[in-house]
C-alpha cells in the first residue's frame, strides 16, 4: 500500500513523502514513549534522587557504626546523611568521628547537626568530636551535603579507633 500511495502522491501532488522513513519514525516514537514512561517510573522509585531505590545503609545496622545515605543524588542539591553510632561504641563522654578529606573536597558540608565540640584536621581524615549525654547510649549526627562534582562520589566515615564504613553516591549532573 505504501509504495502505491507514495507514487500517486508524488505524481499528482509533488509531495515528498517517505513512508519507509515515516514508519521507522513511528516505531522510534513508540519506543521513545516507553522510554519516557520508564524514566518517570524510575524517578518515582528513586533512580534519580529521593525514593526507595536510593535509600541505603553502609555498615551493619545496630552495630557500632552505620551510615544512612543516598545512592543517587543530583549536583548542587542538598542530600541528607545520617551517621549512627551504636550504644556499644559510645564508651566515654565523647564520640569521635572521622570523615575522609577526599569526600569533603568534592562535596561541601552544608550543615552538621549537632555542632561538633572540636574539629581536627589530618592528611586523610577530619576528626569531629562530639560530647555525649551519657555513655552507653546510641547517638546520631545529621549531615547536609551538597555534591559539587558529577559522577561517583565515595565517602569514608570511621570511628576513631573503630570500624570504618565506605559508601558511594552517584551524582547526576
Amino acid at each position, binding site marked *: *500500500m505504501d509504495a502505491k*500511495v507514495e507514487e*500517486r*502522491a508524488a505524481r*499528482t*501532488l509533488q*509531495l*515528498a*513523502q*517517505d*513512508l519507509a*522513513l*515515516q514508519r521507522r*519514525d*513511528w516505531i*522510534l*516514537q513508540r519506543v*521513545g*514513549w516507553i*522510554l*519516557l514512561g520508564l524514566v518517570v517510573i524510575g524517578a518515582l522509585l528513586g533512580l534519580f534522587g529521593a525514593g526507595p531505590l536510593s535509600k541505603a545503609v553502609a555498615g551493619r545496622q545496630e552495630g557500632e557504626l552505620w551510615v544512612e545515605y543516598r545512592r543517587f543524588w543530583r549536583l*548542587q542539591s542538598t542530600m541528607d546523611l545520617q551517621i549512627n553510632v551504636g550504644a556499644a561504641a559510645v564508651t566515654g563522654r565523647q564520640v569521635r568521628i572521622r570523615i575522609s578529606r577526599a569526600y569533603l573536597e568534592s562535596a561541601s558540608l552544608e550543615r552538621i547537626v549537632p555542632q561538633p565540640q572540636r574539629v581536627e584536621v589530618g592528611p586523610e581524615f577530619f576528626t569531629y568530636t562530639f560530647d555525649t549525654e551519657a555513655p552507653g547510649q546510641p547517638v546520631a549526627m545529621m549531615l547536609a551535603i551538597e555534591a559539587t562534582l558529577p559522577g561517583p562520589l565515595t565517602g569514608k566515615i570511621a570511628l576513631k579507633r573503630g570500624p570504618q564504613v565506605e559508601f558511594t553516591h552517584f551524582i547526576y549532573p
Partner: protein
Amino acid sequence: MDAVLRGTVVYVFLLIIFRISGKRSLGQVTTFDFVLLLIIAETTQQALLGDDFSVTNSFLLIVTLVTIDIGLSLLKRHSQRLDRMLEGTPLLIVEHGRPLEEYMKKARIDEQEVMQAARELQGLERLDQIKYAVLERNGDITIVPKQETK
C-alpha cells in the same frame, strides 16, 4: 565552557523530546498545550542558567543556542536525509475523499480534525469534497479541495 555544554545538552534533549512526542504536540496548540510549553520553558531555564545569573552567561547561552540552530539548518540544507530525520516528512492522510485510516491512526489524527482544517481553510462541508489532505511537517493539516465540475 559550562554555558556551551549546558546549552548543547538542553538543545539536543529538547530536540529529542519534541521529536518523540510527535507532530501533534507542535501543531494545533490548545490552551493547555500552551500552558505546558510555558512550564517547560520555565523548567528549562533553571537547568540552562544554573546558579550563574550574569549577563555574560546568558549571552553565551543565547549565542550557543543560536549557533547550533544555524549550524543544523546549514547541515539540513546539505543532507536531505538529516533534514528528514530531524523534521520528519509530510504525510498524505486523505486521498480523493477517502481517509487513509492506517496513517491517520498512526499519526494520531482523527476525521474531525481533518474536517476542521477543511472548514477553516477551504470552507468545505463534507469529507468527499476533499481531494487531498496532508499532515505537514509542522503538524498543520493542509487541504486541497476537489474541483467542482458544474
